[in-house]
Structure formats: C-alpha cells, structure tokens
C-alpha cells in the first residue's frame, strides 16, 4: 500500500488561497464609492443579463467578482437570508453586518473544507444609512475574513492599483457625477499605466440612494441617464473654462 505524500497544512492552505486569488484576478474589477447621497457601485461588465451588482434588501446591495455561478449562488442565498429575516422580524432588522457575517461563515467553511474547491470570489456588501457616517461597506475575500471599508474600495483584477488610486483621489461628500467619474477613471487605468476608454455600454452602474423616497433604495443607473452623467463629467473635466455649459449639464446630472 502506498502512503500519500505529506503536505503540511500551511502549504495546503497557501495553495488553496493561491488558487482562489488567481481565479479572482482573472476577472474585471468592481469599485464601490461613498458619495454625498449614498453609495455607488461601478463594474466593468459588457453583459446586460449577468449582473455583478444586485439588490439584496431595502438598504443593502451586493457586488462580486470571480466565477459567476459561485457568486450568483451566494447572492441568492443572501436574498433569501434577508427576506426571511425581514419577514420573521421586521424590515429594520436586516443589516449588512448580519449578512456579511453569514457570508463570511459560508466562505470560510468552504475555504477550509478539504472536500470542496475554494470559491474563486470576492464580495462587497454595502448598506446605506441615514447619513454618510452610517454607511457601511464590507469586503469579503475568498477565505471568509471580513474587512470593514470606508470611502472607497475595489475588488477584482488589479484591485491594489485601483484602490491606491481611489484612496488618493476620493474625498467625502462627492456628488454622484464626481464619484462616477472617479470610478470610471480608476477602472480605465490598466496594469502598465496605460489608459483605456470605457463607454457607458461597458459599464454596470447602480446606486444605493438614501434620498430615494421608496423603501427600497437600490437603483440601477441605465442607458440615457448613465450616458448623461458620464457626458456631463467629461464636459466638466475637459472644459473647466466653459462655465455656462458646465453648470447647465451639472444641474442635469443632479436629477
């Protein structure tokens, strides 16, 4: 009878982490930014049908990178968790913290169980509060840890580079237009410092808007509205001197 090779637990875990990280790094990135009226999610995603950003509950949304089938599974689990919580107790009792904890448990269990392959996903869970100070953003890496984030966060492809760019340029109290512009700028920088241009068709944008009158604060920014927001940003960025056109478009973008 042959004995299996001995692999130290450290090595086994390192291998699994490496495997998951590589899977995640292959995908395109998602960034999440706080702005004055809420939280904006921007993903590079040419597909209209397969979403990377989705609603979980009234004030909570979810974004993910990695393997679609794996994070879709987690998303549906999250919606079920939230709806069940809200039905059993009250809508107020569904919180991003609780959801993030559940996700962390699930991801952690999968990561350390030897029978299963680790999930190649990284999740973001955000909740919009009554004021910007009450906003919460959690990042959940593949191994089941939770990172509490503030201001801006990026996951996916070259997350490190994008994060550092966002850290340098993000400030509190940005308008939606400004935040969106910064997000697109950060996403369009690639590894070797070059720049690509991202059009509205290549982007998936959604917001958790605390000013929205409905109970459900999640809203996708689509088609014309998105194009208008991006366009007004472009005008504001390139032609700072033309105050007339700028203010006009600026007021439009605040709708």
């Amino acid at each position, binding site marked *: 009878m042959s004995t299996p090779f001995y692999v130290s637990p450290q090595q086994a875990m390192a291998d699994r982490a490496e495997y998951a990280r590589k899977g995640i790094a292959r995908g395109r990135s998602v960034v999440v930014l706080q702005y004055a009226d809420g939280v904006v999610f921007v993903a590079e995603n040419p597909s209209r049908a397969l*979403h990377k950003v989705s*609603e979980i509950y009234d004030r909570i949304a979810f974004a993910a990178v990695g393997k679609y089938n794996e994070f879709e599974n987690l998303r549906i689990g999250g919606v079920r968790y939230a*709806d069940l919580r809200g*039905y*059993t107790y009250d809508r107020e009792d569904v919180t991003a913290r609780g959801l993030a904890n559940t996700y962390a448990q699930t991801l952690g269990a999968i990561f350390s169980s030897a029978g299963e392959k680790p999930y190649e996903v990284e999740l973001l869970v955000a909740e919009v509060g009554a004021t910007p100070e009450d906003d919460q953003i959690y990042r959940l890496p593949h191994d089941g840890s939770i990172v509490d984030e503030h201001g801006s966060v990026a996951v996916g492809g070259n997350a490190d580079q994008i994060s550092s760019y966002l850290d340098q340029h993000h400030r509190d109290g940005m308008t939606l237009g400004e935040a969106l512009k910064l997000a697109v700028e950060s996403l369009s920088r690639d590894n070797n410092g070059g720049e690509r241009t991202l059009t509205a068709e290549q982007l998936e944008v959604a917001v958790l808007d605390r000013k929205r009158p409905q109970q459900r604060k999640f809203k996708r920014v689509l088609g014309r509205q998105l194009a208008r927001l991006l366009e007004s940003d472009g005008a504001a960025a390139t032609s700072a001197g033309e105050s007339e056109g700028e203010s006009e478009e600026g007021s439009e973008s605040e709708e």
Partner: protein
Amino acid sequence: MDFLSEHSPELLPGNRPLPPVQGAIEAPHGTTIVAATFPGGVVLAGDRRATMGNVIAQRDIEKVFPADEYSAVGIAGTAGLAVEMVKLFQLELEHYEKVEGAQLSLEGKANRLSTMIRSNLGMAMQGLAVVPLFAGYDIDREKGRIFSYDVTGGRSEERNYAATGSGSVFARSALKKLFRDDFSENDAATAVVQALYDAADDDSATGGPDMGRRIYPIVTVINDEGFKKLTEDEVSEVVRAVHERRMEQPDGPRAGLL
C-alpha cells in the same frame, strides 16, 4: 414560498394545525373594498372599519396595501390572517423580482395570490375567510386591471369595477350606476368614495367617512408611474365634496331613468 415551506414551514399560514371549534371564532373582520378602472390606471379604495361581531374593533384600520410597484391588494375578511397573507404576498413578489431580476407579469401575481387564498381554505371553513381584491397596472397592455377572488381561491378578472366584503353588494350597485368609461383619475377616486359612502349607508359593518375624527377612506391609484396612496389632504378634499352634496341629496347623485 417554496423555499420558506422547506426551510421554516412554521412561518407559513397553511401549515398550522387547527383546533376543532364550535361556531364562529370572534376575531376582527375588515369589510368593504372597491376598485374602478379609468383610462391609464386603476383606483383601489377601502373603508376604515374593523368589526368583531357587533362591536367596532377598530376605527382606523388600513386595508389597502401596495403589493409591489405596480399592484395593490385590498383585504376583506379576518384582519389578522389577511394582513399576514398580504405580507407574505409582498415578500414573494419582491423576492421573485430580486432573484430573477424581472417582475412577475400581472397575471402571474394574480395567480400567486389565488394559491395563497386556497391554502387558507381550512381556516375559511371555520369562519376565518380572507377575500382580497387585487388591482394593478398591466405594463404590457398599458391599462389597469382588477381581479376578484372567492374563498376557495377562484380568480376572476372584473371589467371596469369591482367590490368585495360585507358592504360590497351596495358598493357594487352604486358603482354600476356611477361608472363611466371616460373617467379621469379624480373622477374614479370620487366614484369609489361615493360607493363606499353608499356601502356605509346600508351596511352596519362598513365605516363611513368620520368627519369629526378626520378618518377618511384609504384611496390608492396605480398608473404607469406606479403605486400611489392619496394623502389625507387629497382624500379629505374628495370626501368633503361628496359629503357636502349628500347634505342636500342624502341618497347621492341621481341616475337617469332611461
């Protein structure tokens, strides 16, 4: 709902054991709900009274709820069970929308509600029936539609107007005489308030507008912009206009003889 029945069946209305009882159970009942369509939408309204036997259990109960953005449910029957049913219905529509990324069709929603009423049949046999009225705006057909139900979950689509609950006989007759095809939103709101007034006139379990306490019927409108509940000021304006005319003509507007 399928997930719920697997995961925590005790939360579903249909899965509770029923104690054997003699006669009817005393529990608060809601009474009259009316709906009327107008070009571009539908109005759904309900009175504010809940009764328990011959006692008024509550004067200001709300019996009309949004089901989702483009539909609403008005409930008549056992208040406690009905409110739970609506809560579960709302949850189901929202859950479907989030998981599938698309809304159910209006027919789909109406069928779903039908199944939920049917699951309550055991309770209905013991006198705890729930009979809702479902109204919504059909985005594909671009018009308002009304569905009524019986206790067994039988679903039927109503043309133009409908009513349910103990005062429904009177409300429906009133609407029959008042309804016009070319109603504006405001006309439709006035017509349903008139119908509720007539129902309260002849049915002791239906509450009329309470001018002293400023308790007015709940009136909701669903059109292509979605669900909207008229504010207290908006409803009070309609109710006052109706009330003032009734001071002169207690039986309401007269229809032509031929």
